[in-house]
């Protein structure tokens, strides 16, 4: 996760999606001009009429259309996923957000081992091949950085505001299966998870999560997990803050106490009414409208408002959309199937008559939790909010000329 006090993201990409598509169409007829070369991959062969020439033959690895160029937005410590470029909830693996504490390690899967020891009958080590022998399980869920919220100016894209959340279909072994294999002492209360990167990142996790839905995953969207997401294996704690989903996991130590590691004490903690809240695991429900959003432009008439909602505590049961700056709320359609602890796509059809307004979304999860406003968060936690576990309702301003701007709300 990023340092909460990091500067708001730099100026957004000013070219609109519509312009970009228009440009791509123009590029199909005329050679790519210098101004578009920045946005459309160079070296694209522009055919006069694709029905009059033979196309490219089959190949070993596919690639995106040269007219599509979704990109993460990297900083020194993280990269943000382009939420505005997705039509549904699975994040393409190469666009999954990144947050590393010491870069991406280069781990030889042949040498990889996961050690489980501590309060167990039999300390054991498992190679990647061993892990794959156990009964496997597949589930789709999000992973979100606990510091996933940026604000501060109007020219911000969904990627810049909330680009530290991504969703994959993960495959691996249930951690409970491995805990049974080593014979965990019934007196155990916690386990320490340690990554095999240069940060040797460690987090203490309540053992109940290990017995519940924790997994050691080696598959992401059907193939081997990407190095940036923890190759060859990572801990997956569905619904819990990203940092606890320890990547490149090499060791699990079963314990009766938490270890109070740096990541769970001086980081990933936040001020609440003069105190500092720690072990804040679940990601509370939230949502964001990804269309329309900055820097897109809309025209009068029918607009399908689209976005994603998710909760670390279970299923999303309702998403409400307001098109009048929060005065009234309408129930959006949820794309089935709605999965637990997963990005859920929502849509709301709206007829824009051309007046200036604000559009907002708010998520409700199956525990009855309603995504709060920034004001509600300040009332609950105090004015000194920090940067972790911030999930306020966010708004887009629709201007008369159809331009869409983020509504930044100051809180520090």
């Amino acid at each position, binding site marked *: 996760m990023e340092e909460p006090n990091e500067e708001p993201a730099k100026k957004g990409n000013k070219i609109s999606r519509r312009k970009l598509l228009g440009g791509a169409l123009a590029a199909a007829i005329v050679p790519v001009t210098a101004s578009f070369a920045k946005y459309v991959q160079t070296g694209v062969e522009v055919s006069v009429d694709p029905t009059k020439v033979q196309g490219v033959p089959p190949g070993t690895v596919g690639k995106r259309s040269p007219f599509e160029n979704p990109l993460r937005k990297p900083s020194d410590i993280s990269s943000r996923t382009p939420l505005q470029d997705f039509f549904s909830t699975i994040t393409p693996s190469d666009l999954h957000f990144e947050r590393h504490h010491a870069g991406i390690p280069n781990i030889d899967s042949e040498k990889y081992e996961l050690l489980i020891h501590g309060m167990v009958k039999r300390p054991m080590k498992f190679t990647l091949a061993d892990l794959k022998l156990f009964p496997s399980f597949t589930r789709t869920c999000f992973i979100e950085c606990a510091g996933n919220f940026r604000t501060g100016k109007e020219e911000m894209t969904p990627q810049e505001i909330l680009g530290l959340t991504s969703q994959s279909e993960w495959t691996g072994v249930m951690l409970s299966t491995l805990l049974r294999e080593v014979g965990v002492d019934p007196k155990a209360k916690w386990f320490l998870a340690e990554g095999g990167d240069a940060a040797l990142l460690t987090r203490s996790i309540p053992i109940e999560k290990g017995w519940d839905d924790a997994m050691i995953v080696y598959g992401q969207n059907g193939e081997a997990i990407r190095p940036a997401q923890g190759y060859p294996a990572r801990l997956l704690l569905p619904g819990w803050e990203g940092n606890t989903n320890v990547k490149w996991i090499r060791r699990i130590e079963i314990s009766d106490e938490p270890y109070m590691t740096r990541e769970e004490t001086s980081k990933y903690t936040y001020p609440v009414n003069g105190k500092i809240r720690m072990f804040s695991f679940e990601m509370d429900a939230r949502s964001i409208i990804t269309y329309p959003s900055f820097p897109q432009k809309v025209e009068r008439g029918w607009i399908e408002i689209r976005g994603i909602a998710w909760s670390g505590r279970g299923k999303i049961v309702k998403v409400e959309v307001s098109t009048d700056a929060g005065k009234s709320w309408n129930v959006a359609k949820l794309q089935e199937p709605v999965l637990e602890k997963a990005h859920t796509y929502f849509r709301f059809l709206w007829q824009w008559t051309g007046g200036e307004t604000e559009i907002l979304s708010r998520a409700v*999860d199956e525990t009855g939790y309603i995504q709060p406003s920034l004001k509600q968060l300040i009332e609950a936690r105090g004015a000194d909010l920090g940067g972790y576990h911030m999930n306020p309702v966010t708004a887009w301003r629709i201007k008369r000329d159809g331009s869409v701007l983020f509504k930044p709300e100051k809180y520090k």
Partner: protein
Amino acid sequence: MQGKLRIKAVYVVVLIGALLAIFLIFRLWTGNVKEPASFGFGKTATASEIAAVDFDIRPDGKGLPAGSGTADTGRLIYIAKCASCHGENGKEVKGIKLPGPPLVTGTAKSKAKTIGNYWPYATTLFDYLKRTMPYNAPGSLTDNEVYSLTAYLLSANKVIKENAIINAQSLPNVVMPAKKLFVIDDRKGGNEVK
């Protein structure tokens, strides 16, 4: 009479057989095979294999190795191996963004989160320094160097006396100023904003 009994017996046997067949088909159909207590995959880890990677430290001191250090020695190590990222004295310098975060509590005006005003446990320092520092050569510090750096950083933050000796016995007894501020998360979902 006997014929009737024989028919009854055959009937019962057929019925039991049919029920058994249905049960087995149902089990196969649902794939509901009970997992064994152990699959037998993986190998037992030896004590030396565990010792090679198990150097985490708990707040009660469990895991702290032999050795010791003092702030004086630690200051020299700090200048040689840490100051290039964290600054000459580890304090926040207004207007200058160093590669590493500030470590030492500065003036009252500084809002920087430091070891002195934000870290709840002193043992975390030893654990973190040993596993990750220095940034350009993680894991290269000896246990005595880590003890000395820990002593220096605690002393610079005025948590311990300048001449205090930090070792496996004294470190868990250091009470950090921020410890009293930490509370466990009490959010539970439901219709409540916390």
